C-alpha cells in the first residue's frame, strides 16, 4: 500500500542532520551526561549500602535524597538522551504535563489511603 504520510515525515527527518563538527560537540555532551548519571548512581548505591532503614529522621532525609536524585537522573535521561529538551515547547508540555496532573495526585491519594487501610495485608495474605 502506498504510504501517504511519508512525504511530510521525510521532510522533518531530513532536517535532523548535523555536521561532523556539530557531532563532536554533541558527543561531548553525551559523555558529560553519562558521567553525571554514573556519579549519581554511585552515590545512590554508596548511600544504600551505608545507611540502613530505621525509624529516624536521618532515614527520612535519605529517602527523600534518593527520590530527588532519581528525579535528577530521570530529567537527564528524558531531556538529554531522549532530547525532549531540544523539541518544541508544545511537544514537551504535551508529554510532561500529564504527570503533574495525574501522578502527583495519585501518589498522594495512594499513600494516604494505603495508611488508612493499614492491616489489610493480614486479612488478604
Amino acid at each position: 500500500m502506498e504510504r501517504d504520510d511519508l512525504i511530510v515525515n521525510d521532510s522533518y527527518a531530513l532536517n535532523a542532520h548535523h555536521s561532523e563538527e556539530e557531532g563532536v560537540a554533541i558527543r561531548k555532551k553525551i559523555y558529560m551526561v553519562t558521567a553525571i548519571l554514573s556519579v549519581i548512581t554511585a552515590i545512590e548505591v554508596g548511600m544504600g549500602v551505608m545507611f540502613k532503614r530505621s525509624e529516624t529522621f536521618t532515614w527520612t532525609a535519605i529517602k527523600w535524597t534518593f527520590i530527588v536524585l532519581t528525579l535528577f537522573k530521570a530529567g537527564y535521561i528524558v531531556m538529554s538522551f531522549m532530547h525532549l529538551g531540544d523539541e518544541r515547547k508544545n511537544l514537551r508540555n504535551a508529554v510532561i504535563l500529564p504527570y503533574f496532573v495525574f501522578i502527583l495526585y495519585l501518589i498522594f491519594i495512594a499513600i494516604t489511603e494505603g495508611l488508612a487501610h493499614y492491616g489489610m495485608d493480614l486479612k488478604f495474605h
Partner: protein
Amino acid sequence: MSGEAKAAISKEVLWGGGRSPFSVSYGKMMMWYFLVSDALTFGGLLIAYAFWRASSVDPWPIGEQVFRSMPGLEGEFPLAYVALMTFILIVSSVTMVLAVEAGHRNDRSGVLKWMGLTVVGGLIFLGSQAWEWSHFIHGSGGCFNLAKEVSITNPDGESMTLLAGQRVYMDHHFGHLMEMHLNDPVSVPMTQDGGHVVLTELGEHPHEAHLHALRVNKYIENETIVEGDEMMKLWNARSENFAFGAPIPGLGADWGGINHSEYATQQGFSNFFFFITGFHGFHVFSGVVINLVVFLMVLNRVMERRKHYEMVEKVGLYWHFVDLVWVFVFTFFYLI
C-alpha cells in the same frame, strides 16, 4: 539533535494546518504518545506498590538485604549486583544515543557499531535479571517459624525475646539440604553435635551440611546472627513451618505452612517484585527485538535509501524509556 524543532516558524504557519505543530514526524510523535501512556502504566503499578506497602503491618523487606548475592561468589554484597545491572542499562542507553548521533551524520558503520553494543547490553541485562529471579525464587537458605516463645542473649549480650511464629533463618548450604530433607526424611539423617547441627546426605558421595548460626530479622531492621547454645535454643523451638525462597504457586515446593515466602508474611513483596520487574523485563526484551530489527534494516541499507536514520531515533526513544523506568524501579524496590 533538534533538527526541524529549532526552526523559527510563525504562529500562523505553525498552527495553520498542513504541517505538524510539533515539528516532528507522525511516527516520532506517536512514539512519544505511546511512551506517555506506557509511563502512566508503570506509574500506576508503582503507586499500587506504594499503596500495598503503606497498608502493610508485616515489616516490608529491605531491598538491599534481600538482594545481596553475586553470581558465582560466596559472601554478601548488598546492592552490588543490581547496581551493576543499573550501570549496564545506563551504558546501553549511552550507546543508543551515540547510534542516534551517528545516524544524524549518515554514518552507517557507526550506527551498526553502537546499535550492536546496545543489543549486547540489553541481553546482558536480561541474563542478569534471569539470574536474579532464579536466586530470588530459590531463596538463600530459607527459614522456619518458632513453635513457642524463646528468650536468647544476642551477640551484644542483650536479651531478646522472640515470639512464637517469628521467622528464624538458616544459612545457604544447610537450608538447601534441609529443603531436600523435608522431601525425604529417611536418607538425610540429622544429628546434633554440641553447639551445632549436622545434616548428612547419604548415597554414593555422602556430604554434610553444618548449621553453626541462625539469623533473626534477616530481611528487616536489626538483623542478628545467633551462634552456639543460643542458636540451639532457637533450633529446638522450631515448628514444622518452613519457607524457602519465593516459590511460585503451582511450581516447585509448597510446604503447606502458613507462609510460602521466606521474605515476608504478606505475599505483596514478591508479587509486586515479580510483576513490576517482569513487566519491565518484558519491555527490555521487546526493546532488544526491535533494536535487532532496526539493526538488520540498517545492515540492509534501508536507511540509506530513505536518506535518513529516523527509525534509529524512534527505537532509541523506546530504549531510553526502558532505562528511565528502571531508574524508578531501582529506587523504589532496592533503595527505599
